[in-house]
């Protein structure tokens, strides 16, 4: 799809606007993390500000297993199994953290989960067992040179490896899918599976209790629900999927650092994605992340895929770029200054505007416009409302 667009007449525009496939893989696994964050925070109203700890757990588990540093699990352990192990570790962690944290609410809950996560962040950053230089974090070592395989463990025909350099390439109907494209589909498969699992849970009676907790916890208690157990359950489930997301991230990138996995600003990115996409919509955070990454790449420094900067440079031509605007600042210099790598500014402004004016986020607002989820509303519009 991306390739087709690149060969089309609007290729310059397409390359400018669309994120690369590699970025899209990131959108998928981080989107899953953001979805898992939304699962507990958006649906119960308890802001899990230490959610990155589960993401980090998943990421570190995958790498440490591959490096043979986890007891009982050799470097040859199937990737799918390490994902599961990481998820289960996160469940245990979530239950331990949740047991004490869910006695609190509001700001206090956010702070205690943040505290726990930062304790682990600092610990992992200083623990030299995980990596030679724990501050930089671990990378997959020589004991696992092959790519991580997604699919049915042990059945080669049903598994494909992911990674930019280590992934499989697939020839299909005469066209070749690059390793990045294969990674995109395989990671996408897992993310989709996880999304459906969470969606099933949200639409089950269990999920309805979570919503009741968000709306009015006292009433939920009065009706006879043990809300503490429900919250704990939601936290554990959400931790599991956050760890799977972290595992996918580590499997694709083959390295992780405390800063991009355990650190509290990673939770901040999930929060960002959730708000822009729609808090409490489950699928919304994925779109939020897509938006975030698209803007970032659009405004990224020159040389990485497309983006606005090279496009403007090509469009305006050298003469315009060299023209002076204020003092000795040129147009080119000004464009460079305001755009080059400063996507956070624009994402931040959009985020603030969303909090102020679009509190339901992209998906939340669209859903309330069409009156229901798209899966229900679109057929209803097309076929009429006679069902």
């Amino acid at each position, binding site marked *: 799809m991306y390739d087709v667009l690149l060969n089309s007449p609007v290729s310059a525009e397409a390359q400018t606007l669309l994120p690369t496939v590699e970025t899209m893989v990131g959108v998928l696994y981080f989107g899953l993390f953001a979805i898992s964050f939304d699962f507990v925070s958006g649906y119960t109203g308890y802001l899990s500000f230490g959610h990155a700890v589960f993401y980090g757990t998943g990421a570190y588990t995958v790498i440490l297993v591959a490096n043979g540093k986890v007891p009982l699990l050799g470097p040859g352990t199937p990737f799918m199994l390490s994902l599961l192990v990481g998820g289960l570790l996160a469940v245990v962690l979530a239950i331990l953290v949740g047991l004490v944290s869910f*006695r609190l609410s509001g700001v206090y809950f956010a702070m205690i989960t943040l505290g726990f996560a930062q304790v682990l962040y600092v610990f992992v950053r200083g623990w030299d067992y995980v990596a030679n230089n724990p501050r930089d974090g671990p990378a997959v070592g020589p004991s696992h040179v092959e790519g991580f395989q997604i699919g049915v463990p042990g059945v080669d025909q049903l598994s494909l490896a992911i990674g930019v350099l280590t992934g499989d390439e697939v020839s299909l109907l005469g066209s070749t899918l690059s390793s990045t494209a294969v990674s995109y589909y395989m990671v996408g498969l897992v993310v989709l599976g996880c999304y459906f699992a969470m969606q099933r849970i949200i639409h089950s009676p269990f999920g309805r209790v979570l919503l009741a907790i968000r709306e009015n916890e006292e009433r939920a208690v009065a009706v006879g629900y043990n809300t503490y157990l429900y919250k704990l359950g939601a936290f554990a489930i959400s931790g599991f999927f956050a760890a799977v997301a972290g595992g996918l991230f580590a499997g694709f990138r083959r390295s992780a650092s405390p800063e991009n996995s355990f650190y509290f600003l990673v939770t901040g990115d999930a929060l960002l994605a959730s708000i822009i996409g729609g808090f409490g919509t489950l699928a919304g955070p994925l779109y939020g992340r897509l938006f975030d990454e698209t803007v970032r790449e659009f405004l990224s420094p020159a040389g990485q895929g497309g983006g606005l900067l090279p496009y403007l440079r090509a469009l305006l031509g050298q003469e315009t770029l060299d023209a002076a605007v204020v003092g000795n600042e040129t147009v080119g210099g000004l464009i460079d200054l305001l755009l080059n790598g400063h996507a956070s500014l624009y994402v931040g402004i959009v*985020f603030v505007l969303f909090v102020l004016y679009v509190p339901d986020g992209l998906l939340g607002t669209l859903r309330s416009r069409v009156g229901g989820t798209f899966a229900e509303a679109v057929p209803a519009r097309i076929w009429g409302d006679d069902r």
Partner: protein
Amino acid sequence: MILEALADFLTVSELGGVVVNGLAKSALYVMIASGLTLIFGLMGVLNFAHGSLTMVGAYLGGLLMVVTVSGGTPPLTRLALFFVAVVVAFALLSVLGGAIETTIIRPLYDRPPIYQILLTFGLTLVIEEVVRIVLDVYGLQPISDWQAALATKPQFLREPVALGPVSVGWMAMFQILLGTLTVAGIWAFLTKTRYGLYIRAGSEDAEMASALGIDVRQVFTVVFALGIGLAGAAGTLLMWDPTWGASVPLAAETLLPAFIVVIVGGLGTFRGTVVAALVVGMTDAVTTWWFQNAIEFTGLPELVLFLVLVVTLIVRPQGLFGVEEVGGH
């Protein structure tokens, strides 16, 4: 090994040094946290942008010093200029704080408190990126400390002074002085002025205060402005401290300790914040000593501080001096 270290730790010179360093750290902590606690106490807004604004204060204070100080400026003039810089940073950031409150915080008072967290979190992104752009223009490195600003510090503040058997840095003494002045100033403002009375009344029951004729909205704006101003003053002080220094990551480096201090003290109580700053500062100094002398784990002080946060929330969620009404805000 551990016993040896303990014996060493308990000598007068070592322990004395740890206590003075602890007080100096407490002074910094109280400065970065007091604005946060005033704002939360009155408005229930947990300001995630507090660290970013402290960072802005560090650059602003640094800028004023770099512009006014030259190589030949005598030490006392530098000190005097520094106090001017603190006041100017306080004033400018107060104005910025007032503007932020009236334009974007005010519309959110009717929404659940989570939205204020979200909004101020978004604000940090914007502020930090604007700072990066400005630094770009002047060709400064955003990640590393601003050396030119550090260089405006008078020479004697880099030197140790002997207090009996204890050798401490002049800088530590200077920080303790400024922290004490700040605490005394805030305390006097809160208890001795009419506006302070309104702030305390509004913190307890904003609705009742308004029914007594107090313009609580205006008090909100003033407190937000003052709180941000305090962040700016704290930033200016940190700009001269080599372990902090003016840099973009200073935002996150100050935000997390500030959170720890206000939560441990009890969200919104100024007295609690002062006591918690002492607790946290001392803990920091003690664990830093142990890390430097006996235990090899690099993150020890930071790890222990977060443990203090977690344990406080488990054992006494309302904090040392908080009112027992957890989650009320």
